[in-house]
């Protein structure tokens, strides 16, 4: 009899454990962080840093990460595989909220779950519109746009103008141009940058470039036409004009190191990772803000039960700067110490 009672008590104990664990896990909030790129990319790491800041102290929320790795490889075959894998991760994990960073995450995964009854989407780091993903007017979508920090870039160029001997107040013209590849993302940047009021700087236009040879020619050609070159997308440059579709694009580091070394005029990146690739300086949207804002939006959805459609889309407000010391020294340019401290604090200062 005593054995039976003991067995029943043990069974009850185990059953309680199982039921409690199941109950807790089934109701535990669950976020899937879907990155278009991977962690070898500083942008992704900084997005995660901002995200963790937003989720600080919220270990109760189960957070999983999925990296689509579309920066290193973006041929149609890889995009198809990345899309299937990301959607499988979503279907298997049934997250309450997907935080999707950058365009491919929206295009290849997020857009498949628009108006899903159980899954909410928070997009971030999208530098164009979200109409193509059917996010506008969707019940389950909110997020934050990434807009190039043109005002900050203008301030920075104005500041550097004196260092190259230009006196804007004294009537000198400071001419700028933007270089980018043929991708949709670069095209959106061109449109956005082109629509900004750059005066008193003189924006001479954007150059859309398909291959590395054309890039080199354009850089040399701009020597006498502009005082600063801004660079945007350059990750999809073919090696030669007649390079086949199977040939790999020129590595971004090679493009930027060549540009920095050979450009007669200073090169300013409009994405923070341009300096990591080799550019002298870049002013870009803060990935910390993108990650942090996305995390806060996800928390409002999970903790306060706010419908995503009630949370208005946000736009980036903050920026970060990055420097490459060796490039600055080569051009004999001095930057204010406060800039250097800021870059160092955000891990964006390169020797």
């Amino acid at each position: 009899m005593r054995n039976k009672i003991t067995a029943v008590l043990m069974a009850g104990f185990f059953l309680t454990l199982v039921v409690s664990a199941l109950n807790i896990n089934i109701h535990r909030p669950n976020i899937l962080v879907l990155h278009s790129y991977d962690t070898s990319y500083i942008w992704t790491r900084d997005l995660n840093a901002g995200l963790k800041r937003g989720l600080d102290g919220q270990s109760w929320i189960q957070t999983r990460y999925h990296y689509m790795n579309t920066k290193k490889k973006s041929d149609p075959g890889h995009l198809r595989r990345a899309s299937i894998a990301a959607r499988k991760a979503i279907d298997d994990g049934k997250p309450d909220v997907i935080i999707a960073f950058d365009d491919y995450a929206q295009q290849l995964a997020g857009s498949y779950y628009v108006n899903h009854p159980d899954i909410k989407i928070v997009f971030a780091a999208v530098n164009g519109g979200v109409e193509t993903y059917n996010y506008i007017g969707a019940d389950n979508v909110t997020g934050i746009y990434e807009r190039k920090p043109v005002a900050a870039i203008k301030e920075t160029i104005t500041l550097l103008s004196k260092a190259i001997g230009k006196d804007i107040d004294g009537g000198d013209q400071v001419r700028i141009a933007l270089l980018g590849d043929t991708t949709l993302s670069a095209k959106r940047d061109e449109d956005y940058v082109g629509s900004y009021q750059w005066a008193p700087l003189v924006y001479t236009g954007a150059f859309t470039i398909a291959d590395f040879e054309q890039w080199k020619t354009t850089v040399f050609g701009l020597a006498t036409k502009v005082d600063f070159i801004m660079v945007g997308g350059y990750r999809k440059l073919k090696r030669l004009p007649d390079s086949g579709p199977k040939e790999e694009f020129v590595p971004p580091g090679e493009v930027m190191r060549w540009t920095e070394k050979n450009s007669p005029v200073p090169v300013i990146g409009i994405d923070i990772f341009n300096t990591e690739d080799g550019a002298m300086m870049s002013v870009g949207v803060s990935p910390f803000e993108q990650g942090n804002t996305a995390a806060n939006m996800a928390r409002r959805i999970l903790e306060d039960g706010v419908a995503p459609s009630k949370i208005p889309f946000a736009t980036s407000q903050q920026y970060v700067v990055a420097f490459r010391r060796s490039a600055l020294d080569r051009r004999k340019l001095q930057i204010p110490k406060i800039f250097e401290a800021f870059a160092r604090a955000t891990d964006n200062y390169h020797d």
Partner: protein
Amino acid sequence: MVDWHQAAEALADQPMFRSVPAQDLARFLSRIEILDLDEGGSLHTSADEADKTYLLLRGRFEVIGIGGGVTEISKGFLGEEAAIGLEKYLATATSIGETQVIAMPKDALSELAEHGPLVEGMMQSYSRRFAANDPHQKTVALAPDSKQKKNLPLRVTFGWAFASLAPLLLYLTLNDAGILPNRQSVYLLAILSAAVVMWVFRLLPDFIPALFAVLGIILFGLAPPDVALSGFSSNTFFMALSIFGLSAVITVSGLSYRVMLRLLQVGPANKAWYNISLFLSGLALTPIVPTANGRVAIMAPLANDMLRAIGPAAQQEGPRLTASVMGGATLLSAIFLSSKATNFLIFGLLPLQEQARFQWLYWLFAASVVGIIVLVLYALATWLMFRNDSNPAVSKDLVRDQLKILGPMNLTEWSAVLGLGVLLISFLTVAVHRIDIPWIALAILFSLLMFQCLSARDFRQRIDWSFLIYLASLIGLVAAMGHVGLDQWISGNLTWLQRLMSDDLPLFIAMLAVTIFVVRLALPINAAVVIFATVLIPTAINISVNPWLIGFIIVLMADCFVWPHQASYFLQFQSMARPEAGVNDPRLAWLHFLIFFMKLAAIYLSFPFWQSLGII
């Protein structure tokens, strides 16, 4: 006509057989004989070789010891000398009137003796008889044979010389060469080289070089302990531990043997069904017993029972039964995540998101087409290669009585079935419960321990702790390679390999398969998998080729062999199988050679399926 039922009851009545598990006693039943003797019939004489022990069922015997003592036996055992390990009988037993005995072969008794005090019981039975009746009976010394001191093979001597020299040479060559990314990489490569030499020359059991590597990493400060020992806290480690626990319960409970008997009972009494039964039993064990050697250890006695039961036909059918056992137990090792140590290793090397994707069920799904194709080709090959005109049949009465000895399913068997059921349901409902499979498996293990379905002793003895150390050490080793940047360096210096893997996967797979086949002529399976996986999986990750696919192909192809020495599980079967199994039949070597091509064909035929899954 043999009365199996009477024999079964007589055996079960003997106290010294009570500690023998029911499944072993049932199996033992197929190996005994019942002998009837007339007045004056000689059971054995003192000059005979002691090859059987007898249990008296009916009648009396006169027993005369070698010292001249005489006694009369009307119940209990005779010829205990066989059971206690003597070479010759020390007495002569003669029938008084009509008698009936159960004759139990020496080798069958020695297998039973592993489970309890059988030998002690027999010794007591033997010594009691003569202590009472023959004061001149000499005490028999049962000292083990003195082992001959053997010289170590030359391989071991050379191996240790290489293990000492390889790291030294690597260090001297690479330290100032500036080839590797940093000094830590030089040290790590030196440590790795010593471990690889130990594996290649088989100087030590596999897990010891792995442990050495982790120890070296910590002692040399190449990576912090939490990196070097990360394998010991990985979910892969706990998944493997839990599967081992469940597997131990299944083995201890005798569930696998019951399933085999049921298959024989329900199927037709012909050779096709016997082969299918053995194959299916092995196949059923594949996902739940996580080592091929473990499965072979369970299957070999079943195969021996079958060979004995089918009598003379075993000479012709033996090689095919061997092929069925080996095929069932090992052919689909790569198809189930939980069926091999190396599969866990591959799983442990995958990035977290790929681990989340290739959980147990999806691993099986992704590998299923390969499995089905290999199964079909294997069935075709065994049918064509082992055709013969024998027509064996196993007595259904024997099977029925063996099942009777097993009795109804006991609590441990039910717990094994329940554990398996819960695990399967958890695989299917992972999206609902959101708990990672390793922790569900651990909960099952906890319940088995809590309810003592798995005793503390079985937990210590039946779980392959050396493998778990091996697995965890290798995961830590690869993590340390990542920590010092060696993995990136290796993949970065294999650009031609990257290009081939990325641009021409079919050619890469063919080259990989052939390379593995050649390397496996010298290296054991685990070492080959470790070397290929540590180089190729980081490379695949680096260029966005699905790392599971590369890992799966490595474990699938590394499991191929032609010669017995290439596969420890085949050697194990060789040592356990009866002569009629025909383990040295050349057709088996040809079959193993053909499996290489079957697997390769299955890989290529799976391409469309993998494309649909987004794996390629």
